[in-house]
Structure formats: C-alpha cells, structure tokens
C-alpha cells in the first residue's frame, strides 16, 4: 500500500502538489509512481522561467530500463527546480514527498482547481 499524505493534492498522472505559504506550489511524483518506475538514475527538470500548461510534459524521470514524462499538474511558471536531483535522483525513490520534490511553480489564476484529494487519488491507485 503506497503512502498518500492527506495534506497534498494529486493528479491522475501521479504528480503531487503542495501549496506553500508564499503562494507558490511544490510538485513531485507520488510514492506509487516512484515504486512503479523502480530505481531512478536520472531526472531531467525544466528551466526556471518556463511557462507550463496544465498537462504539459515538463520533466523526465529515467530508471534503468524505462523513461517517463512528468506532466505539469497545473498551469504555472517554473520558479525553481530541485538541483539536488541532478546528483541524487534516488531522492525521488527514498523521499518522494520531501527531498524528492522536483519543482516549484507560480500557479496561473484559478490553476489549482480540479486537482484530486488524497482520498480521490487513493481510489485512482487502487484501480490502477
């Protein structure tokens, strides 16, 4: 059973979103997603300043035998990315909701609507 913290919001494509005090949001991939991918060997992140549409492919996670896109959970602009993942992609496996965060976005107006609650996301992974 994967870990799905109740204080975060999620997407059907297995990204999580954490609202921060300064109005930006932190984005990563869920425990379920990291477990399905296996040990990550590389994470490619977007350039800060890039404007993303909701659902746009914006990062790549690569394990030994697979590579997958990470999709922007909401529309917004990339404020900063987790530079530590360049040297330590395994943080996404060991701490997907903490040290494995991928990027911070400044959300476009109204962008946060339509995300899944932890409960709704749990139903998605149960059906997967």
């Amino acid at each position, binding site marked *: 059973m994967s870990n799905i913290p109740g204080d975060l919001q999620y997407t059907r494509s297995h990204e999580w979103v954490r609202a921060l005090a300064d109005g930006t949001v932190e984005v990563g991939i869920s425990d379920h997603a990291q477990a399905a991918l296996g040990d990550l060997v590389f994470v490619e992140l977007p*350039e800060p300043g890039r404007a993303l549409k909701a659902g746009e492919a914006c990062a790549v996670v*690569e*394990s*030994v*035998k*697979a*590579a997958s*896109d990470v999709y922007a959970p909401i529309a917004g602009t990339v404020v900063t990315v987790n530079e530590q993942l360049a040297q330590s992609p395994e943080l996404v496996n060991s701490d997907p909701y903490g040290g494995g965060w991928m990027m911070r976005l400044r959300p476009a107006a109204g962008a946060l609507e339509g995300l899944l609650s932890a409960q709704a996301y749990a139903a998605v992974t149960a059906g997967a």
Partner: protein
Amino acid sequence: MPFIPHTDEDIREMLSAIGATSIESLFDEIPTALRTGSLQEIPAGMSEMEILQLMSARARADGRQLCFIGAGAYEHHIPAAVWAIVTRGEFYSAYTPYQAEASQGTLQTIYEFQSMMTSLTGMQVSNASLYDGATALAEAALMAVRANRRSKSARILLPRTVHPHYRAVARTTASNQGLRLEEVAYDRAQGGTPVEALRDFEGQDITALVIAQPNFFGVLEDVDTLTDWAHAHGALVIAVVNPTSLSLLKPPGNWGGRGADIVVGDGQPLGCPLSAGGPYFGFMTTRSEFVRQMPGRIVGRTVDLEGRPGFTLTLQAREQHIRRAKATSNICTNQGLLMMAGTIYLAMMGAEGLERVAAACMARTAELTERLAAGGAVRRMFAGPVFHEAVLALDRPAAPVLAALATRGIQGGLDLAEHYPELGSAVLVCATETKTTADIEAYGQALAEALPAVRAA
C-alpha cells in the same frame, strides 16, 4: 522451430486465417492504374560467373587511375590484417547485434572504439558510431538544440567551409524539424572562417556554431577564437573533424577556453577503402553532461553477478525502443562492420603510426602543390595553412584540364565549380601517404601535357 520466416506453409496458414486467396489479393484495393506492373527495364538475372566477367570488363575500362581527389574520402594504406580480421564470421555483421550482451566480443570492440574516439577527440563519451560524417553532423545539430537549453531559436550557424554534402544532408534532416541552418561566409584570401564573419550574429540567440577542422578547402580554421566566440555568445560548438588529422592537431576537447561540445566526423580514413561513396562510418563524441542527449548506442563496462567484467549496452532510455516518439534520434543501431575496421586500424597503427600517416599526408600535399605551381599555370588559391588538401586556382577552365588528365590516368582533383562557382576555375587536390614522389611527378608531367590543349581564360 524453423528460423526462416514466411515458409510456404506459414503463408498458406496466414492467408487462410484471414480468408484471402493469395498475397496479391491483399493489394486489390490499390487501383490498377496506380500499380507499376512488372519492371520492364530491369534485365534478366545473370549467373555469378557472368557477373564476374561483366565487372572485370568494366574494371578494365576504368583502369587504375592515380587518385588525387580527397574532398571527404581519402585513399590511405590499409594494413592487410584489418579486413582479414573484420571479415571473420564472428564479427561479420552490419549492425549492433540483437541480444547484444550475448556478443561480448563485439561489445568489447565497440567499447574499445569508444575509448579510442574519446581519446582522439579529447572528449569524455562516444557513441558506438553513426552512418557517416554527413548524417553525424545532422544528428549533432538536432542534439545541440536539445542540449543548449538556454537557446530557444534552434538556429545553427553553418559556415560555407563545411563540406557541401554535409550541409545538404544537415539541411534535409534538420529543416523539417524546425531548425534554421544559417550560412557563414569565408575569407576569400585565407580560405577560413574569420570571426569577423560572425559579428552580424552577435546579440542574437544562436544555438550552435559548426566548425570544420580542417575545413572543406583543407584549410585550418582558427578554432580557438571561433570556439570562444560561440561560448561567449551562448552557443554550443559542433566540431567536424578528420580523425587522421587529430594525431597532429589540437583535439576539439581543447579548443579555446572550454573546448568543443559535440565532435563528429567521418571515420572512412580509418581503415575503410574508397568504394563508390561507401559504406563508411560516422563518429560522435561529447561531454558527459550531454550524454543523455546523444543519439545512438553506447556500450558500457560493468561486472556480472559474480563480479566478472563484462560489456553491456547502456543509457538505453534515450533510445527509440524505450522512449518511442521522444527518443533522442531514430538511430537505433550503429555502423558495426566499418566501425570494426576503424577500431582494428587504429589498434594496429597506434598513436605513433597515425601521427606518421598524418605527417606524411601533409608533406605529400605540400610537395604536390609546390610541384604543380612550378609550371606557372596553377597557384595555391588560399593563403591559410592546410592539412592534407589544398585548393588550386587555374588560369584556364578546370573541367577540360581535369578531363585531359583523366585520359592520362590521373584523377587530378575535384572541380569546385558546382559548389563554389564564385571561386572561378578552382580544383581541390589531395595527396595522401599513398602517393610517391614519382606519382607526384607523373601528375606534374601530365598537367604540362594537358594544359596547352585548353586555352587560357
């Protein structure tokens, strides 16, 4: 289980499963008017003996000409052992093997090849080879767009001193993928690309600058200044190099303050005979930081479960069979057999042998241009220093002179009229280590005989 697919029985079973009467009936929906029918112009088959007789007759008609043409493909001595080893059954495959790890010998050779190419170019990683130099440049342009994340323009500066065929192939490949390839003028006195020719692009978003060393005219570019200019303006540097020359010249990894970013070239000079244009092989090396943007296969060294060393395909998540439409390239193999020849050639020559070949080529070409210029009708067109090729300016039309030389058994060089009409009567010549002083003298004599028949312009 038979290993031959599509036996008559297989075909019968498949046709009956879908209720079709014949393979031909599967094409019924194509209107008859659009079908070619049988190919009338294709002659009937010939036996092996007849083919041998035909080809022998044609070879006699061609004769054994003395070749002084380079222009991207060079006649070098190839030690007999190279092809004796390459054609062994264990190695005799055009491709990276399927179930690659079952062919440890092939993977080890590729690994050795990669090590040699990184050493020769002064870079950190190499792929397992590409089809040829021209497609390698096209792949490098696409790679530069992926790798230079600060640049949004997909504009690549492509000097006119880069091989015209390479530019044409790069244009074919890149233009339909949104890249803009922009030409840079050369210096008509020196034959190189002056940094002043890049001033118009300053302040603009440029993704990469291509630098050929030596360039198509055989001239050595000021690679340090050009490399530093590119890096100062946020552009990557794509080096197009002749592998033989690298035993004498500064490796691209050391160009300017930071070195080139992607290095490509044609491996033909390394053990591949001139053969009606190919097959040859391309090579590509780069910095470690760009390895995930590099196309092609990469072999890595590892250990198995029992700790024994072994070789494996690595970083495959870049490739088409895993990344599908988002793969770095549609290249999903390498030019295995020719790369093998290049690896064995380099192993046999060693660093010292390759350096002697390069030095001999340089000396022979200098000897050739001096001998030909002594007649007065010919002079070096460009003042810039050259490696093993040079452009000669003639005082009369080049094409009839070259035709007259050919009747005397001399391939006298490449007429540049098609690709560089602005140069007037100009011929690109090359003398490698295979040309003796007597050969050069024969060219000089033939030229002296050929010139009077062609009126000076």
